[in-house]
């Protein structure tokens, strides 16, 4: 069954159409990469799933029930920046999620185990400001996973990181995805990254353009590739997609 499904979803601000006729299903256990040019509506798409915004038309279902237009514990998120709480230590950042749902449980051991999995087992009591960018993102991932969300949303999670660190993070998120059987939706600028990590790549862009009134056509899923087996090189589709989006 689809964890998340979009049915004919539109987003309009006044007469500007951002997304139009978006219909898609995300299966349990999928790692969906979402790519597209800047301003095409990738962020709007993610805001819809997060519940920061409601669609103007159409419906979004999570596990078969209509999605509430408010962020909630069934959807975890890692943003590019500002994902962690600067006033809490690393350990408290991760414990926070458990304490929100259950005041009595301190969840210390669980949090330590989760931090160990993302490689922060030795940095429990420092504040995030003392961590590097990559380590902060590791913390943000641990923080999001501790509440076992139905779907994990990644918004350009590795965009601000050095290439080397980025590769480490790819390995980490891939491992966590397999180990925890996560369903992941990742928005990225990096097409290589999208194909390397995703089991499915969705490109969001405008299907039609009106030069006189460009705002009257919105974006939708213009390409949707399921990636059956992964090999080392980029698939043919990636090159074609890169050319289309350039």
């Amino acid at each position, binding site marked *: 069954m689809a964890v998340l499904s979009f049915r004919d979803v539109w987003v309009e601000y006044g007469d500007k159409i951002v997304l139009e006729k978006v219909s898609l299903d995300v299966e349990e256990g999928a790692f969906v990469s979402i790519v597209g040019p800047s301003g095409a509506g990738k962020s709007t798409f993610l805001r819809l799933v997060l519940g920061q915004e409601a669609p103007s038309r159409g419906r979004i279902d999570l596990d078969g029930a209509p999605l509430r237009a*408010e*962020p*909630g*514990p069934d959807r975890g998120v890692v943003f590019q920046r*500002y*994902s962690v*709480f600067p006033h809490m230590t690393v350990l408290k950042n991760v414990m926070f999620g458990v304490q*929100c749902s259950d005041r009595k449980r301190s969840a210390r051991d669980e949090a330590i185990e989760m931090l160990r999995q993302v490689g922060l087992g030795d940095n429990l009591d420092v*504040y995030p400001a003392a961590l590097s960018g990559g380590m902060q993102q590791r913390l943000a991932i641990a923080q999001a996973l501790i*509440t076992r969300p139905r779907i994990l949303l990644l918004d350009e999670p590795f965009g601000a990181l050095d290439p080397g660190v980025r590769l480490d993070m790819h390995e980490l998120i891939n491992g966590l995805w397999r180990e925890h059987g996560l369903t992941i939706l990742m928005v990225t600028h990096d097409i290589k990254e999208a194909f390397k990590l995703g089991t499915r790549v969705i490109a969001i862009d405008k299907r039609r353009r009106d030069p006189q009134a460009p705002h009257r056509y919105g974006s939708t899923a213009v390409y949707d590739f399921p990636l059956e087996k992964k090999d080392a090189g980029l698939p043919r589709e990636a090159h074609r997609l890169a050319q289309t989006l350039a």
Partner: protein
Amino acid sequence: MPRLLNVRPRGGGRLVLGLVPILLVLLLYVTASTARHAANPSDKILPTVSAMAEQVRVMGFEVDPQTGDVPLVVDTLASLKRLGLGLTYATVTTLVLGLGIGLLPVMRASLGPLVAAIAVIPPIAMLPILFIVFGLGETSKIVLIFVGLTPFMVRDLASFVASIPEEQLVKAQTLGAGTWLVAARVALPQALPRLIESLRFSLGPAWVFLISGEAIASDVGLGYRIFLVRRYLAMDVILPYVAWISILAVLMDLGLSALSRAAFPWAHPARAR
């Protein structure tokens, strides 16, 4: 030779650089005072250091036979009590309103314009109203400090809370936090160091309002004493009192700064400069 831009005094050098201007001002005063007293031994405008020391002894360490109190001590206690109460009420109100207005769009829409309107009224212009409404006693002086500080502190804290990245608020909600938990565990702890900073900046205006209130209607207090002895041109009392006020103000500022560093280490990361 490095550029002036890059010259950074450290340790002892920094101390010397800070002390030199203070010593220069003191030296200038002593020189001027000595010159005036050479021309006119009974000059009252620039009293000598020994005359001021004598007044410090009389006002600060001797019981006044008429009242049975040590003037400097009762003045200080009275002023600090007014200041403390005014600052406390202002701080508590700021915490509640600033947090609410900064975090909740509904509260921002309803209370924001009112706070902004009150903030532009010069507090001293409200002093007559306060005297009429609250009488000439302690209440009106405390309320003056409260009214003078609160609108600015509320606006400062509200804009700070509103600038907490939306990502953090969304993240907290995806972790299961509701409005109350976001306020208590995300916004409040981050607002506290800013509130202390805002309080430090408000100490100056707070003293202004305190001295104004005391100057106009009071029978005890640092401001009262200064304005009382002004009638006799008693600069040898006024100057030590002013120095004492500045010492109190500096101590309060240092105390708040130390409190913030001790209680919120994450808000004060070690800096390179």
